[in-house]
């Protein structure tokens, strides 16, 4: 039984100091409370755009016809 668990783990990434300074200036007065928060935000945004989708299972021919019939009955397909 898990009563207590470890805290979430973080890792350290090195970026050029000058870039870090620019980012610190960039986030002044915004909702980002730290350099890490901003970098995490940007990386999440970037990574979400390039992750590849695994192929979804397609309907079998038989199931596809059943689904089409159902959608036609609702008037959504001709």
């Amino acid at each position, binding site marked *: *039984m*898990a009563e207590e*668990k470890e805290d979430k783990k973080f890792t350290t990434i090195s970026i050029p100091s000058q870039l870090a300074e620019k980012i610190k200036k960039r986030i002044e007065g915004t909702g980002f409370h730290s350099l890490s928060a901003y970098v995490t935000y940007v990386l*999440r945004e970037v990574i979400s755009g390039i992750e590849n989708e695994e192929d979804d299972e397609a309907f079998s021919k038989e199931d596809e016809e059943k689904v*089409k019939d159902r959608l036609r009955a609702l008037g959504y397909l001709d």
Partner: protein
Amino acid sequence: MPRAHGNKLISRHLKKELQNLNEITKIKINTNVSEDLLNIANGVFSPLKGFLCYNDLENVVKEKRLESDTPWTIPILLDSDKKDLSEGDTVLLEDKENGVRALLDIEEIYTYDKKTLSQEIYRTQDVKHPGVANIYKMRQKFIGGKISLIDYKSREFDDYNLSPKETRFLFKEKGWKDIVAFQTRNPPHMGHEYVQKTALTFVDGIFINPIIGKKKTGDFRDEVILKSYEALMKNYYLKERAVMSILRTSMKYAGPREAIHHAIMRKNYGCTHFIVGRDHAGVSNYYGPYDAHDIFSEFPDLGIIPIFFRSFSKCSKCGSVVNDKICPHDQEYHINFSGKKIREILRNGEIPSEDMMRKEVSEMILKFEKPFVE
């Protein structure tokens, strides 16, 4: 069309031959849990494959994300006081009322502080909040683990109950790439139609997705909501631009967190945009009117675009429905779309003004002897 949340549309339907179920420990589940279970099995809750384990719950509570860093804001939990359960067991989850049966592989049995859960999810520990009250009603232990759906009974309105796999197929067949989702719990008034059509103007199609299920006294009955939307769509929408499907899930009234959850579900249905109104999924005064808008800025990786609407009303000077960004006229010219007022008029058997509700919609509602939950 966006990828399913977490990159894979989940399907948890049992494919192998069933062993003898008489020997397996059974856990009774209620309608809310069985609806969650079906939503997991059908991919509405992708990427969840089962009920949350401790690390995922802790991360959802503290970070609004699963342990994998995927955005997730509402805990999907199975509580139980069943004795003699162990991690590694397989049990049968059973909702006899709705004919739902599933296997659960228990990965973890754990406890979690309910005060923390309430405060973080609902921003309050007030038991008057319906979500907090539900947490306090839950039993002390939570069971995490993957589920496999065995079977379920067909239910009322299932003709309109499309799975994400089916809606994705439908959108592809219709050639829609950008799809906006609209969530509702009420028959449409003119304000709703304005919001939907404004959003639809910029995309290929609209997915109207009423939440069906447990309602409180005075709410419109599910059938009334569906039939009134049918009346609106038949008379005022292009057939090739609008579809409707129901979503069986309970409202949590978690305001901003629930707005994210609602967006994730619609992303799984294949939608690219999601309409978020004022005080979305709110109750009483627990959240600010636009908290459910602001929270989206925490999720650059959500994968569905929110479309925010603030207040809207009918302006007699403009002669149209307007919002606070486009109309310069004073309040005296504005008629607000009050759901309460519309209900009162309909309750008296009268037709609301066409400034408020389409005649076809009102007439459809009044065809019902009892349009409201009693």
